[in-house]
């Protein structure tokens, strides 16, 4: 897939206008999302219609995003910097609530439940929809306590033995247990960058969420650590729905089943990853994946 993308990028005819100043030029082109954004009710995990996000001063960050996210799929969100892909990701677990002056409108449903509904509690939502951040952010506590924090918080373990089991299985799923089993009581911040990120993933899956949101999880890591995490994501797909924001198109191509392309706050195209990278339907998508801008 990677090779195909690269070959395609190289072979793409250079007939389009150069990218300089291209953003404004292309902005009016986006009228609606092309491709297949909807799953027509089949195994939909997240359902999002007409989502807009405003920051302080009515600055609109994303415009009318309509997309479905399927169960146990990996959906990659790509696009140039500042295109709103992270903002959209943070809508899905209401992380934007924590930003002063940020306002989200529209309809987002998790398993058919409105996540902005009155009876919906953001704390419960975040236990169901875990998040892994761009910069590894383990707590300055021991490895064990990092992973045990969530289960302790939500009372998931009845006793120490159960907690030990949760910690071990989470670390195992995150592919970290072998490396750290002899030093669970050492600080999590003493691990390498890649290990720290896997610790953060273990911390997230320890709460047994249904969805894991990943905001550029490998952008601070070296290629080897990145490869480990990518393998991990592929394994995690068996039990979780994963939404990943990435700057690397190769990564999106390698790990995702569907890819969403954002441009200037608008969702331009959603389709099977293969289709997006081999046969993009929108001019902007094609420009982006062929490296014309972004």
């Amino acid at each position, binding site marked *: 897939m990677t090779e195909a993308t690269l070959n395609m990028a190289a072979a793409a005819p250079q007939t389009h206008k150069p990218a300089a100043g291209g953003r404004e030029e292309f902005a009016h082109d986006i009228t609606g999302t092309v491709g297949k954004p909807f799953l027509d009710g089949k195994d939909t995990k997240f359902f999002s219609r007409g989502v807009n996000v405003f920051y302080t001063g009515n600055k609109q960050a994303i415009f009318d995003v309509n997309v479905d996210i399927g169960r146990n799929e990996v959906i990659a969100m790509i696009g140039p910097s500042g295109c709103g892909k992270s903002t959209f990701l943070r809508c899905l677990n209401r992380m934007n609530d924590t930003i002063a002056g940020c306002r989200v409108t529209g309809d987002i449903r998790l398993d058919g439940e409105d996540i902005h509904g009155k009876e919906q509690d953001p704390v419960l939502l975040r236990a169901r929809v875990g998040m892994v951040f761009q910069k590894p952010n383990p*707590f*300055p506590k021991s490895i064990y306590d990092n992973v045990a*924090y969530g289960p302790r918080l939500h009372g998931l373990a009845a006793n120490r033995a159960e907690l030990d089991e949760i910690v071990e299985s989470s670390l195992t799923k995150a592919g970290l247990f072998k490396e750290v089993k002899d030093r669970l009581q050492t600080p999590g911040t003493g691990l390498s960058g890649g290990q720290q990120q896997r610790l953060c993933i273990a911390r997230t899956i320890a*709460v047994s969420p249904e969805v894991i949101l990943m905001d550029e999880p490998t952008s601070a890591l070296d290629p080897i650590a990145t490869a480990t995490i990518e393998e991990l994501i592929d394994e995690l797909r068996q039990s979780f729905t994963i939404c990943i924001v990435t700057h690397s198109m190769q990564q999106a191509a390698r790990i995702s089943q569907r890819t969403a392309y954002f441009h200037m706050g608008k969702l331009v195209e959603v389709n099977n990853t293969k289709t997006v990278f081999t046969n993009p339907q929108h001019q902007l998508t094609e420009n982006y994946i062929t490296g014309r801008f972004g």
Partner: protein
Amino acid sequence: MSTTITEKVRASLGKRYAREKRFRAYGFISIALSLMFLVLLMFNIFSKGLPAFSSTYIKLDVTLDAQTLGVTADATPEQLRTASYNSVVQKGVQALFPAVEERKQKKALKSLVSGDAQYELQRMVLADPKLIGTNQTVWVLADDDIDMFHKGYVDRTAPEADRRIKDFQLVWLDKLEAEGRIDSQFNTTFFTRGDSREPEQAGILSALMGSVYTMSLTLLFAFPLGVMAAIYLEEFAPKNNFWVDFIEVNINNLASVPSIIFGLLGLAVFIQIFGMPRSSPLVGSFVLTLMILPTIIIASRAALKSVPPSIREGALGIGASKTQSVFHHVVPLAMPGILTGTIIGMAHAVGESAPLLMVGMVAFIVDVPHGITDPATILPVQIYLWADSPERAFTERTSAAIIILLAFMILMNLLAIVLRKQFERRW
């Protein structure tokens, strides 16, 4: 091309290194200067203050006979308390120099020993009434003038009129010295008593206890209030809100209000309106709390602000509530900074006297306070009172009190630094 660049860089190197050296020299000089002044100050305080930790005693042979004491053999404790120990002391001193007949000299003879001597005997007899009718050898506290002489502060060669110790007294003192009846001992009085008009009987304990009570209460009130206010303002208060900004500006302003104003406020509000006891550590600590709150709030807010947002997001991302993310992660990480702010505030408060003058803590306090509502004074005020006293012996006690204040401060800061180390974690 590249050679010219290399040459240019090389040419500028000398200048750059010279500037660096110069800057280091400035730093070194300023540190050396401050150290020099510090050493000078310490030397001055310690050389003046250390002698105060010993005091001069005179050995007396006294006869505790019932007749002189004016009591009967089966006296009640009350009678023993009011017995005439003064006469016993007087007889004991006269026994040292039987030849002295003149009235004025007899009076001078009596004042060789401190007024405390008779109470020393009283304490002995009350503790063991069987002593009545026996002969005892006791070391009693010498008068402060004798103490000063024995410590070498009196110049024998000066004209008699310029000396507190006259020629005939010098003869007595030399005789006492020769008989081994005069000696220096550790000054326990200084650590076990309150203030007194007589320097040899004056102690630091009432001021020390006053400071301990006041500081403990100040910490008890200011720390939770300041930290909670900082946490609320930094983590929970709405941003860009007029009232929050208004409060913030006012806190910053309060930090620069002269401390005596807080004293006036304390007088007007706590004493006049709420009728709290004047001169008490309770009111003093309220005033000091108000004074150091801005310092603690500002420092704590800075510490909270410096905790990376990724930690907050990490906690929120796995379903911690706002309060949990703040108290499980942000506050522990900010604790070293919060404690630093508290140390600065407390160090400020422990040396402060101006605001406490207004609430009556400047009083002459003899009794050691036993509670937070007892009249008390504090170390800086005690230092001020002694520095203002004319007796020579108070000079060394002033310096000794400064040493105690410094020790108190170091102890307090040490505690805070140890606590801070406990909270410091590596990232």
